[in-house]
């Protein structure tokens, strides 16, 4: 038992972090929010070149996967930098397509692994993220996974960088079931939320060190310190759930990770907003790009209550 990322995994995450730090993601996010996808697509290619999407695609389809631990490590970094686009959905689509007939999988999966194609997925009753940017759109209803012929109009999300569209009905049947896809979607979302929360905490710690009131940095006040300490605690205890789920790939573990990481990220977002005061409430200030996503990820791929229900129902199978 050694429950730590190994040197290679840490180096992979660090290189992705460096790539994204140099990429000016706030400008990319603002472009994406306006429906201008050019800079986002360029960044997408670089993320794909780093091997991120290939981690969810088996070697038989020109991927490197399945490697859920590395994928989780990568999604922490994507979340840390609030990278826009249907990241989780492309991973989910890749897992769904593995259930399709080999010819279809062979035709569609390599382009997902290479980053040539963005994919999105609309689960039953939900919107597809960035349906206007994705070339491959999958509608996923129980027992019916279809290639959707198109998308409806974009609806605004609370997170401006998430452009939500309904998918048009009909289309070719791809597969019947996809048990594992939801686990991958939740794992990736949990990791993304964890990274988002870590970034929110970092930015807020930086802010309260330099913001002065009553003649001292506000970070010297215990009321401020303790809220930030609580955020750190919540995030540090979500982290092992995320990587534990990546190792077991049990649906209930992914659900637990999703609930804990999204709650931790959201609580950190609330704290970040409070600690920044009014400046944090503005759309112009960069913090908003992280804040709004923390809210959106809570409900994406299963709200906390849905995930908790799965955690307790897991006990039924062991009885």
């Amino acid at each position, binding site marked *: *038992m*050694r*429950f*730590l*990322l*190994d040197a290679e*995994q840490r180096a992979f995450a660090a290189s992705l972090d460096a790539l994204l730090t140099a990429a000016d993601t706030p400008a990319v996010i603002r472009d994406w929010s306006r429906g201008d996808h050019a800079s986002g697509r360029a960044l997408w290619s670089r993320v794909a070149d780093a091997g991120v999407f290939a981690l969810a695609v088996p070697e038989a389809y020109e991927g490197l996967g399945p490697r859920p*631990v590395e994928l989780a490590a990568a999604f922490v970094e994507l979340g840390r930098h609030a990278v826009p686009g249907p990241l989780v959905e492309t991973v989910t689509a890749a897992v769904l397509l593995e259930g399709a007939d080999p010819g279809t999988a062979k035709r569609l999966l390599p382009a997902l692994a290479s980053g040539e194609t963005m994919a999105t997925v609309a689960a039953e009753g939900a919107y597809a993220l960035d349906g206007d940017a994705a070339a491959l759109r999958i509608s996923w209803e129980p027992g019916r996974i279809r290639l959707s012929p198109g998308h409806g109009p974009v609806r605004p999300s609370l997170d401006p960088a998430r452009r939500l569209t309904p998918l048009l009905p009909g289309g070719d049947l791809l597969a019947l079931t996809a048990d594992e896809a939801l686990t991958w979607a939740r794992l990736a979302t949990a990791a993304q939320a964890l990274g988002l929360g870590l970034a929110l*905490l970092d930015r807020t*710690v930086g802010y*309260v*060190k330099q913001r002065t009131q009553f003649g*001292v*940095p506000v*970070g*010297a*006040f*215990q009321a*401020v*310190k*303790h809220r*930030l*300490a*609580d955020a*750190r*605690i919540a995030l*540090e*205890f*979500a*982290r*092992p*759930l995320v*990587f*534990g789920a990546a*190792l*077991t790939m049990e649906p209930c*573990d992914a659900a*637990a990770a999703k*609930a*804990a990481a999204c709650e931790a990220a959201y609580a950190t977002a609330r704290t970040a907003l409070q600690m920044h005061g009014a400046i944090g409430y503005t759309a112009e200030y960069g913090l908003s790009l992280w804040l709004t996503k923390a809210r959106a990820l809570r409900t994406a791929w299963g709200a*906390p*209550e849905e995930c*908790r*229900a799965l*955690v*307790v129902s897991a*006990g039924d199978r062991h009885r």
Partner: protein
Amino acid sequence: MDLVFSPADEAFRAEVREWLRAHVPRAPLPSLETEEGFAAHRSWEAELAADRWSVVNWPSRYGGRDAGLLRWLLFEEEYWAAHAPGRVGQNGIQLLAPTLLDHGTEEQRARVLPPMASGEVIWAQAWSEPEAGSDLASLRARAVRTDGGWLLTGQKTWSSRAAFADRAFGLFRSDPDAAKPHQGLTYLMFGLRAPGVTVRPIARLDGKPAFAELFLDEVFVPDEDVIGEPGRGWRIAMSTAGNERGLMLRSPGRFLASARRLEELWRRQGRPASVRDRVADALIGARAYQLFTYAAASRLLDGESAGPESSLSKVFWSELDIAVHETALDLLGPEGEMADTDWAERYVFALAGPLYAGTNEIQRDIIAERLLGLPKGRR
């Protein structure tokens, strides 16, 4: 990265499980915070020790099995899952013993550890004083040099287990002229029935004498019972506090067992939807604490030392423990008010968690200043 224990580790786990199946008392022992229960728990320590299960991670020459950190974690998981009795010797085992192993002499280890392992000598801690709680370095109880040792005078309080324990350990001011409060302190061990010691039990919330005040009037302590150098006690005590907050005091096994017991209770009560999320959070929290500890143990095995991260653990487990027991009492309905249930006993015990071993407010200060790098301020 993996969560797979070796076949040898799994064989160890199986051996622990088998032993517990044969030995754990069918009916719970009386509360260890009562005289009768204290004696029963002391006998249980002897039973554990007879087959060398009381201190598995200690060196074998002191009564352990050299089992190492990972197997200690596995032992704890099995121990609490088996509903085995609370550990009346834990203050000595988890706080004093690591200090002796790091800072004591071989003579001290050989003399003190074996009777601690067998339950023959039960230890209490003597840190706090009426005017020195969170600000422990302001403590005033004195150690005055005398022929062949030291004379202790002053008052200690909130001394867990001291009502029925045999000996105690704590910090005393040996150099009142030292420049700073945390200098000039000496770490000493003393007998609770030595001449000059008065023990006044204190009733906790449920009336049981779980801790005590200690009045010391020129209590003689021989030099052989000083740990480390005189005047250097603060640093030694802080290493103990690190153990207390971190891995060693509250193993994940306890909380996994509590969370599963809560889940069973919830099922027995007809799975009420109103508390389903709280039951799930108990299971998630216990798993998170287990995995967090596995990661911490992996780092320790890589040769890293435990740092302020232990403050994260202490806040997390103490709040988790209260949440689990509050949920259980709510689930029990009218029975939840009764004081004579296991859940009530453990609830009262859990309530103290955020207070002892450094309050959770002190832990949050440590997290903010040492992990987040925020400026020091007035407490």
